[in-house]
């Protein structure tokens, strides 16, 4: 599957995993904690959902698995160029939407 095929349909889980990995390479459990922290506990990824998403993102080439170092139990993941591009265009699409929404006065002013 190519990136353009799912351009319009990044799920919240995928988006948050991409965002998490944009900062640094992480392993699954750390992604889970990071997402929970960043959403103030609103989005808690359960293991099945998390690794299911990771598996599909690996298949789609959005992220890559870092070969585990000897003695390390967990695999770490890194954003690929394709993943970074997908994240960027999704964020661009969203900020475009936010800009339009602001024109209609739908976005709350900064407190």
């Amino acid at each position, binding site marked *: 599957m190519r990136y353009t095929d799912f351009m319009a349909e990044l799920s919240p889980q995928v988006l948050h995993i991409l965002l998490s990995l944009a900062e640094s390479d992480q392993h699954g*459990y750390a992604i889970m904690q990071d997402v929970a922290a960043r959403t103030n506990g609103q989005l808690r990824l359960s293991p099945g959902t998390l690794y299911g998403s990771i*598996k599909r993102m690996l298949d789609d080439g959005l992220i890559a698995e870092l070969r585990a170092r000897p003695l390390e139990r967990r695999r770490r993941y890194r954003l690929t160029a394709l993943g970074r591009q997908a994240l960027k265009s999704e964020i661009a699409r969203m900020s475009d939407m936010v800009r339009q929404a602001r024109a209609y006065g739908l976005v709350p002013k900064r407190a």
Partner: protein
Amino acid sequence: MDSYPKGPKLYRALLYAYPAEFRHEYGSEMEDAFAGRLAAEPAARVWMAAALDVFIAAPREHFAILKSDLRVGVRVFAKSPVTTFVALLSMALGIGAATAVFSLVYAVLLRAFPYGDVSRIAYVWTPNPKFTGAPRELGPSVPDFAAWRKEQRSFTELAGFNEGHFRVKSGNSVSNYDGAWVTGNFFQTLRANAELGRTIVPDDDQPGHDLVAVISDAMWHADFGGAPDVLGKTIAHSKQTFVIIGVMPHEFSYPHSSDFPPTILNVERADLWMPFGWAEKRMTERGENFDSLTAFGRLRPGVTIRQAQAEFAAMEARLDPLYPELFRGWRVFVQSFADAAAGEVRLLMWLLLGAVAIVLLIACSNVAGLLTAQAAARVHEMGVRAALGAARGRLVRQVLTESLMLAVAGGALGTALAMGAMRLVVRLNPGNIPRLAEISLDGHVLAFMLAATLLTGIVFGLAPALVASRVDLMELLKSGGRGLAGGQRLRGSLVTTQVALAVVLLSSAGLLLRSYWNVQRVEKGFSLSTITGLIALDLGNDRYATAPKQDAFRHAVLQRVRAIPGVEAAGAVTGAPLSHSESLGFLEVDGYPNSKDQVTDGRRATDGYFEAMGIRVLSGRALAPADRNVVVISKGFADRYFAGRQAVGGKVRLSHNEGAPWFTVIGVVDDVRHSNLEDVPRPVVYQPMGQGIELRLDVAIRATLPPGQVAAALRQIVRDIDPELSVAQFLTMAERVDEASARRRFQAVMLTVFAGIAVFLPLVGLYGLMAYAVKQRTAEIGIRMTLGASRRRVIAMVLRQGIGWVAGGIAVGLAGALASARVAASFLYGITPADPLTFAAVPLFLLIVAMMASLIPAWNAARINPVDALRSE
């Protein structure tokens, strides 16, 4: 965060809901993650979330695999369209045939009757061994029934009915309805309630009470337009007026012929029910003439058929001596409702089920063979996947998914086929298989189809799945990844199995066809082109109640029929051949050592009858118009009672009374298959008609006109003479023969169709296997040819291999066929179960067609270019 708490065991168990592949990949990390959350958050919430997670994520992972397997499957099938087509066809034929037969068996044997718990309903018959040829299902006399009802303990209620043929006047219209005279507890015993008004109750069944009637939903709509004010209206039958008290629901039409063995009842469906209202005298007098009825009851809880049989047999033993001496000998036969309804055809249903099971087995093993070939060809693909780390289970799952895809597609096609087949089955309806016309694709049948589909998908998928997944990487590397001969032996034995099964079916079909043919060819004794029609004179009024009145009517009809241009002969008889009407009478033959209660079949006929029916006069003469006190006898009668002496001129007496007159035999006619086509005709005495009252008149006409024209003319004549009379059962004798052999035709056609499928499928399998084997042996054949083997020898070599597979199957199949023919011996006519013709023709035929299927691959083998073959190595 650097310590990794281990997840609890329960969570690890939950992980088994995920596909193995996923679990192996991520299981331990998921456990870690779960343990991490468990340490940080409230346990209840984490467990809830985990359960929900498994519930959503696990199916998603399975579905993802299924999706990819399906994609691979479609690709695999598209790559070999011929194999796919043949496999689909096999599945569709197998599942289609099985579904059609199951729907038939379900309708005939398994579907519930609308009479409450029918397993508790039983009939009580009174067979009398003295009446040779009479069925066991002989209804008891009214006095016996009345006596039983007083003392029996086996049934909670014992009810009875008699078929009735009503000519009903309602308003200005007159119509004919079949129905029943019933006892007061008839409806209660059947647990049947009226749709409108009420049913007949015991109080209605008293002499002198108001005459009441219950009508069917169909009659309500036909005669009263379905109007709700029908209750209280009256109908007239034989000059009596009946008040309508109730309307039965649409599905109630008991009693009807198809709930009974053939010829027991002559009611297509019941539309009208009236209470008997017996007077006391009828319930006690046991003379030479007595009324009988069909008795049935609902067994008391815990009472078995056998116990009821014992009780009634004991009662009947006490009642039997109450009859005049010559009329004794009654026994009792208690029969379950289901046995009465399906007893005779149950064996046929088992035969069909057995046959279709064989077809399904063949179809399965055929598809298994095809998929095994495909799997063997995919060893390379599987090897690569295995080398990349796919577990064996994963490969099995892939192949099983593919076979299930095939099964589901085949099942869908098969259902379409079954629907078509069921329409054909209904058209083939021999008329005496109960409820055959009611077969349909309902929920039960669909459930069966689905189960059959899934089961076959798994069964035929397992073999190839195991072949495909048993990849030996070393072996694969050594063979250069070309694919392995693996599975050829399996496929060979699958072909052998299929051929063996096909032999069983083909022989059975052959035996049934031969039997059918024998029945068709049997000497019937009458002409097939004769046209018959039935005039019922049982009007319940006095119009035809005396012999002179009947004579006048009969003469008028026959005279006018004979006057029609193109009519060559016409006559009448009481009960045309194959019309299910028999009558027995006492017999004494002058100069013969008569036994005391000797009986014979008797018929009364007019002049012209033998000529019209095409019955040959062998000696003496036929009946003439003025004949009285004479008889014509059948050849069988002459052979038995006048053996070694002159029959014509002999004397017989058709009564056990000392004072009865003797009749002179004036002629001997050929034997006629009266009751059915298969039994040797029994001796018959023909008396001249006109010496008594007849309830029915069967007119026989021999004409050069088309039957339709004759029928129209006869109808018109009868209507002119008496508008209240009508003619029924207009049939040529050929049609009666057709009807009488319909069951055999049905069996033979069904089995032949199955046998056709059963032969076709293994041949396809054989062809595929041969083509594959030749391809595998290309190099070997090339070497042989280089070394000087001629084309003929190559062809012979290949054929030998093919014939080897087939011959083994034929040998095993013949043994099976002989065994199954012995089991099904009751279906055969005029041949032994080991019929030499069938058992010689079947193997020969299979060898020839197998040879033909092998010829093309053999021919291809012979055209192999040795140089090319060796180069490609």
